[in-house]
């Protein structure tokens, strides 16, 4: 009820202040909020793309020999192993309107053969809340983990997916 009331009031107010609405639309058009990926000091190198579309290649990994790539860790357990690294995510707001944002993340493709976790949270194709109050402007480190079962064989050994981050200002 409170939300409905607020919406109606806002609607009237907005209708009255047409110029305000136009300003908001311009701000959206200029895209004041942006996402930037940065390599963590103790994380794997990021490659390619624009700042908001980068690639993280974890290289060749195996249960018994781990990884030879710098800042890529592996942890072997019974029947599975986990490949992990860190990366940084920075939210920027050129309009300086917002101080924090909500960060959601999802994998682009379903991955039944392996599990992708971000900060311990298993990612699905449906966006999930990663951080409710991410400070804008700060580089926030995130831990990416990929859990690979030992039953995954050479036939389907190429892991390729994308993590889509959605950032909504608070």
């Amino acid at each position: 009820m409170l939300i409905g009331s607020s919406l109606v009031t806002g609607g009237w107010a907005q209708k009255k202040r047409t110029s305000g609405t136009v300003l908001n639309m311009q701000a959206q058009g200029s895209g004041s909020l942006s996402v930037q990926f940065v390599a963590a000091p103790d994380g794997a190198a990021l490659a390619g793309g624009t700042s908001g579309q980068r690639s993280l290649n974890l290289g060749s990994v195996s249960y018994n020999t781990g990884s030879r790539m710098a800042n890529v860790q592996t942890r072997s357990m019974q029947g599975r192993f986990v490949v992990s690294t860190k990366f940084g995510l920075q939210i920027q707001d050129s309009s300086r309107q917002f101080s924090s944002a909500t960060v959601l993340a999802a994998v682009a493709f379903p991955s039944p053969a392996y599990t992708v976790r971000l900060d311990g949270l298993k990612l699905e194709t449906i966006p999930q809340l990663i951080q409710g109050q991410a400070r804008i402007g700060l580089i926030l480190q995130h831990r990416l983990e990929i859990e690979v079962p030992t039953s995954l064989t050479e036939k389907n050994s190429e892991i390729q997916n994308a993590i889509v981050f959605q950032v909504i200002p608070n």
Partner: protein
Amino acid sequence: MKKVTLLTILAAMMMFASFASAQTATGTLTVTATVNGSINLVFNSDAAGVALSSGAGTNTATLAFGNVSAFGAVAAGVTRTSTANTFTVSTPVDVLVTKANSASANYTLKAQLGSADAVNTWQVAGNTITNTSATPITATGTYGSNTAEAIAITVPFATTSGTLISNTITFTATAN
């Protein structure tokens, strides 16, 4: 009724406007990795043999037969056979090969002596091994189960008492 409808439409319009004006940003991080199949070999003490003195459960272990002789008592887990001028002491050691992310059905196991021994004869599972090349031990090893491999040393009677016999045996498992 008309007013209610108008209010509803306005409210709906405002909701749309609210969503439309919400600024969101997206970023896409492409993640790639290549999982390589791998196998692992470790040594374990065999229940019927001499316990490994160090390194059980790893790929670098030490097997100490202790004092051996042509006649007299033998240590627990040691089997001795003799000929006219040599004696052989033998004990089983478990070799465990496991696989991960591999479709390999079985493995080949080979063994090679670390350094030449012109006096004593070394055998693994009945196969004489030397330092010149790796000797096939098994062609179809089973993954995930301890396989007892008898390690045997044949010593001439002519060997002086108190002589230390020491060498290394390198086992190599290859996925088939």
